[in-house]
């Protein structure tokens, strides 16, 4: 490979990591919910899109400055996730898995449709604190926006890790996810923990949406593709492992970008998924997931 090719490859990897960190954030949200409530939330992307639109409204229609708008959006996202769990998911928590899948699909329709109804389908620009520009890093020309996305994502994941592992509340949430009946016995209010989990996931989704919007433009269907890749990343990493979700998301981002550049843009989604399928056949629990030992 020539130096030029190597550099171009490096660039693809970096922009793949940037896209991948958005997938990783959403994958993390998916895994958090899956671990605590055994639900795959197909509406995660739409909730993220919806909350990003709320941020957009605050920023452009009400002229709220950037930082307060973001904070307010995150608070609203948390409330949204909390309420969705409490009002829509809780009534079906004992239902068969597929029924809950349908419920999340229903949520998908609702959020998508309402967003289109309120804000329309014309793609909108989303303001970003970082302007488009490039910087030279290790001989590579890297987009500032990409670096910003990567940096924010890493920061958020670090904060999440601290929360889950160093605070009592976070530890209680982890406990509830792993062993609900024992958590109940110890006096942890399980219902509240589950709602908290959904609230937290919604916040992660909102962040993912706000990071992605400047690049892929804000419109009701913007997160559909992102969700698919996030799902793929989560499964690749292993649904029982938050760190797996992160690595899976990053990997999917890189693979998708490389495939698009090296092979064919039209086929990259299908190929990416087939690659993941290949990994799963060899390692059915995902790269970092724990193999579920079957009890007879």
């Amino acid at each position, binding site marked *: 490979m020539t130096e030029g090719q190597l550099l171009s490859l490096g660039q693809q990897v970096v922009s793949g990591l940037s896209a991948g960190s958005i997938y990783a954030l959403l994958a993390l949200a998916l895994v958090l919910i899956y671990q605590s409530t055994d639900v795959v939330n197909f509406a995660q992307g739409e909730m993220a899109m919806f909350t990003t639109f709320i941020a957009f409204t605050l920023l452009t229609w009400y002229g709220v400055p950037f930082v307060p708008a973001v904070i307010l959006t995150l608070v609203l996202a948390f409330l949204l996730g909390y309420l969705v769990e409490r009002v829509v998911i809780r009534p079906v928590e004992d239902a068969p898995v597929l029924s809950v899948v349908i419920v999340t699909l*229903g949520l998908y329709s609702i959020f998508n449709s309402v967003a289109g109804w309120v804000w329309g389908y014309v793609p909108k620009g989303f303001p970003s604190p970082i302007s488009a520009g490039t910087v030279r890093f290790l001989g590579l020309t890297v987009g500032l926006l990409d670096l910003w996305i990567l940096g924010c994502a890493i920061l958020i994941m670090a904060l999440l890790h601290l929360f889950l592992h160093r605070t009592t509340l976070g530890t209680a949430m982890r406990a509830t996810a792993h062993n609900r009946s024992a958590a109940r016995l110890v006096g942890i209010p399980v219902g509240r923990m589950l709602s908290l989990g959904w609230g937290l996931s919604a916040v992660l989704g909102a962040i993912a949406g706000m990071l992605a919007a400047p690049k892929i433009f804000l419109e009701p269907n913007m997160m559909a593709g992102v969700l698919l890749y996030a799902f793929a990343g989560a499964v690749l990493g292993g649904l029982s492992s938050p760190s797996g979700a992160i690595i899976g998301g990053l990997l999917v981002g890189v693979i998708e970008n490389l495939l698009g550049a090296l092979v064919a843009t039209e086929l990259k989604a299908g190929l990416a998924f087939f690659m993941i*399928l290949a990994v799963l056949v060899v390692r059915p629990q995902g790269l970092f997931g724990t193999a579920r030992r079957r009890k*007879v």
Partner: protein
Amino acid sequence: MLGRLLLGVLVVALLVAPLFVNQFANFVLSRMAIYTVVALGLNLLTGYSGQMSLGHGAFFAIGAYGTAIVANRLGLPWPLCILVGGLVAGFAGYLLGWPSLRLSGPYLAIATLALAIAVPQALLKFEGLTGGVQGLKLAQPRPPAGLGLAQDQWLAYICLVTAILMVWVTVNLVRGRVGRAFIALRDSEIAAQAVGVSLPRFKTLAFAVSAFYTGLAGGLLAYLLGYIAPDAFTLVVSIEFLTMVVIGGLASVAGSVIGAVLIVILPLVSSNLTDYLAALLNLVGLSAVGATTRGLIWAIYGVILILVMVFLPGGLISLYDKIAGFWAAKREGAVKRSAVPSPEVKGGG
């Protein structure tokens, strides 16, 4: 006995209906029949065998395109073309069955998702075979001379008869050895293996049969529309399929039919509901808002889905089960409990 009579009446009514309703109604009936065949197939996999699939849109596409390509290039009679479509899809399903041996739950869902995404993209890419974005046209079956049927009526008959036939096939399949093996698989793979159900054989069989049904339905769709294009086989279609078997009721033939009918009707119902909503808003003076309510069709759709799942997690067929169970319980009467005194043991042995 009453059940059988009602069933017979229903079948006769279905067979007579196309003669009396208009073109659009026949089109809707045909689509319901097509979706019923898909629902039966998917339910065999998901309801009876317990394997999740988000990729049945792919089999639908394979069946449709298989039929169209064979019809256009080989000029075979239409029943044969549809059968070929089904068989090709069935083979694809068989292939998908192999990874399913290693994967479960959400992991299997992702694998099937891979298919659902890859196939439409492949359809666009391999233009020579599939006509790419333009799609393929094919000649619709002409009504036989002398019967005096219109085109839409003839197509409706083809679809309805196929659907009724597949219902009959499925009922027998489920009651037989194969059906019992599927159910054993769903309830406990380990126990099933312990009694001699070969996991590889039956899991791949479940996928193959399920895909065959769906491919057949795809062939029907190709003839119904006279034209197919990749955008009729997106991921949304796969999700529609899964939704209909869950809403109708898993592991239930009647549930499959109900689900199929519902999923075809639901967008129409939602559309009407948004019209009512618009009319209501007009009354209150919010006509400007009312004018835009059409965009909320999918929101209403979503609300209906959620309400059905919250109140009937077992699908609509469970409503029937509940009513039947209610009557049975009334007949049994209340169970009396007797109070037993607790004997005491005094000290001393």
